[in-house]
């Protein structure tokens, strides 16, 4: 028995979650062994008959690309979450101007494609900034000329908007009796928030948070369109250099499947460590 709410339906439909992981025993059914053998034969054919001679040459760059992808994922998830907590909280208890502002922000970001937001920041702001001498002479300028700050900004904003919506539901869903009990103990508002409200909300939102993080990983390749050299960009370079269409893309899909798998296993580990009532 866990009292965390189940993950959001749509998030679950779009992202693998710890509950979807197969158990070791589930592979030892007769038809699955046959299917695994067929799959192994397919993989062998792919490895044997397709061209992989480019791989050793690009291996270091691929490794670097994976590091960039992961750095993008973790930095934007953490920053986005830090933004999402106030966004969610304000929508539950804030005064109405802040409430409208926060929900408007969430609606606008969730209503437009991430690719468009990314290009708006990179091409739009990127073309405006040089026109202001104050910005060009500030200490930020060397960073603003690079492309990755825009990628981080766009991914962070988008993650914050989706998470803000999740956190709003989680904050609103914490039973009011628990908050009243904390108040009866004489906790100040800040202590109540820090000790009861936030931990309980995160606990309730955790399955959806995990799913959203997997979705964030699936969104990171978009930054390659603004010249950030992540693993997707490295593969695009391979395809341009060698004129090979499928092999790099298959490898890319495999890399992303492995990254997702590792992420999901890590989440299962994390979820198992959090005590739940009864179980």
């Amino acid at each position: 028995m866990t009292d965390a709410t189940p993950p959001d339906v749509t998030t679950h439909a779009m992202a693998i979650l710890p509950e979807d992981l197969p158990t070791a025993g589930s592979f030892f059914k007769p038809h699955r062994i046959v299917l695994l053998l067929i799959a192994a034969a397919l993989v062998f054919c792919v490895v044997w008959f397709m061209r992989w001679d480019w791989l050793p040459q690009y291996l270091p760059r691929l490794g670097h690309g994976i590091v960039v992808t992961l750095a993008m994922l973790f930095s934007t998830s953490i920053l986005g979450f830090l933004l999402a907590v106030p966004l969610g909280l304000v929508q539950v208890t804030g005064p109405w101007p802040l409430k409208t502002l926060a929900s408007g922000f969430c609606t606008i970001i969730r209503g437009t494609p991430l690719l468009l937001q990314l290009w708006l920041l990179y091409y739009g702001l990127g073309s405006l900034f040089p026109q202001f001498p104050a910005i060009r002479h500030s200490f930020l300028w060397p960073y603003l000329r690079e492309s990755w700050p825009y990628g981080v900004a766009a991914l962070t904003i988008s993650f914050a908007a989706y998470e803000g919506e999740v956190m709003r539901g989680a904050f609103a869903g914490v039973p009011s009796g628990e908050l009243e009990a904390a108040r009866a103990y004489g906790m100040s508002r800040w202590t109540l928030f820090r000790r009861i409200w936030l931990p309980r909300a995160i606990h309730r939102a955790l399955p959806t948070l995990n799913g959203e993080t997997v979705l964030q990983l699936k969104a990171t390749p978009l930054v390659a369109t603004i010249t950030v050299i992540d693993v997707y960009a490295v593969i695009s370079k391979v395809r341009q250099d060698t004129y090979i269409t499928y092999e790099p893309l298959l490898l890319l899909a495999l890399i992303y499947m492995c990254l997702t798998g590792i992420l999901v296993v890590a989440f299962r580990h994390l979820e198992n460590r959090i005590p739940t009532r009864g179980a």
Partner: protein
Amino acid sequence: MAVDSFINWGLLALEPPGWGGVLLRGLLNSIQIAIGGYAFGLALGVCGAFGKLYGGPILRDLMECYTTIVRAVPELVLILLLYYAGTDALNHVLNLVGIGTVDISGLAAGIFVIGVVQGAYSTEVLRGAIKAVPAGQIEAARAYGMSPFKVMTRVTLPAMLPYAIPGLSNLWLIATKDTALLAVVGFSELTLVTRQAAGATKAYVLFFCAAGALYLALTLVSNVFIKIIERHSRRGFVEQA
């Protein structure tokens, strides 16, 4: 200079010196692909959900592979793979049959690609919704001697609809936004034409904001219809406080 490019509304005019007409045609393309891909995905999803719930062990495992792969690999990578592999494979088959190669329109390829991705998502949504239907209702239909197909069309699908509508409406909104990814393979939907217009006029902020407003309008209009459909499909349900 910067302020000028901000407020030069003439650039959005519908006639050729302005780019408004081009943007609207892009929006139309996006909507076409979203509708086509969503419908194709829904058809795949119904088959997938029934396969996953009532199919044999092998079919179930194959469906599981399909949904797992789509849920683990970024849409952008899938779109590239399917776009090239799909058109290539079709031409290959046509060559073998002896018809010769055909030029696959970007529209058809886009619908196929979005549909395959959406199919996996809607498989999961529909499977959850079908499982939420009380088992007694389906058993009763079987006890009446209905064929499996009749059980599906008369009982399972109508009964699961209220449970599926919230997930399916989210998927529709996702389909409209996923069409933007086709810009990367060079299909001239709203995001790509916006970038072309912005590149030609250097009014980046204006055009990207205009396109954002169009996408947002599409989402908000969809939300109105979703509310109506939701209310209609939930009639007879006890409202939960």
